[in-house]
């Protein structure tokens, strides 16, 4: 998955993600489609990572935190203001994420 898929819009301060612990594979896809349907988008794939992966990115205060509602909604927070630093963070996270195609 391209690192740009991890990049929030320049005006946004967090990136929406979903918590998938304890979900079976079909449940993960169903969760993704539910979240995508809210914004009229289509799920083509997903990238799985753990919270330590996020915390290991070379950006201070970078973290993944619960952000309900809805249930299982979370967010990556701590994005730097500098666009180039944001890209760097996206590249690091994309490199450790496990990719799955729908």
């Amino acid at each position, binding site marked *: 998955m391209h690192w740009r898929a991890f990049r929030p819009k320049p005006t946004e301060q967090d990136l929406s993600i979903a918590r998938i612990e304890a979900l079976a594979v079909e449940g993960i896809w169903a969760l*993704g489609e539910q979240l995508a349907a809210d914004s009229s988008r289509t799920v*083509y794939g997903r990238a799985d990572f753990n919270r330590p992966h996020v915390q290991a990115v070379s950006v201070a205060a970078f973290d993944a935190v619960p952000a309900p509602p809805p249930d299982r909604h979370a967010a990556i927070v701590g994005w730097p203001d500098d666009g180039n630093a944001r890209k*760097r963070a996206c590249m690091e996270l994309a490199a450790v994420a496990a990719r799955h195609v729908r």
Partner: protein
Amino acid sequence: MSIAVAACPGGLYSPAEDTALSQSGAELRRSIESALLLPRETPASDTMTLLERTSAALRKGSEAEGVLVNVEPFGQMFDLLRVLPRDIPLPQIVVESEREIGLDWSEGSRRVLSLTIDDTPFIGFAALIGHESTHGRALFAGSLPKILAHLFFRLYPSETDAA
């Protein structure tokens, strides 16, 4: 989880069909025309590929994001591409905002480089090569900044000379 969006189909640029009459359009056309006069030997196929990618990026930026990019970053982009080492492949072009263009090179998940071109004399960069990442800005005064030359050398070690 992440949501991926299918890429837009490639676009074509035809000077004969370019009917832009605005000042911005005329300036963009001059930038494209001057880019076709690259001092380095540039295969015609590469030039067409560059124009197609630029067109596709403009279209995607407009249709998907509602962004109409200003003309100044395009001039800066063409000036930069002129001074790249000859064997560096053409980048993917992304319209990032009204005043920013992204140029992406990707040779694997741990061999990526992205440059940000805007309406200032500086070029932003972010890269992940192996387990080393970096980001910053470099002044572009007509020749390739040393830090960017070094990053291209790291990304394409068999095709470039060290800075």
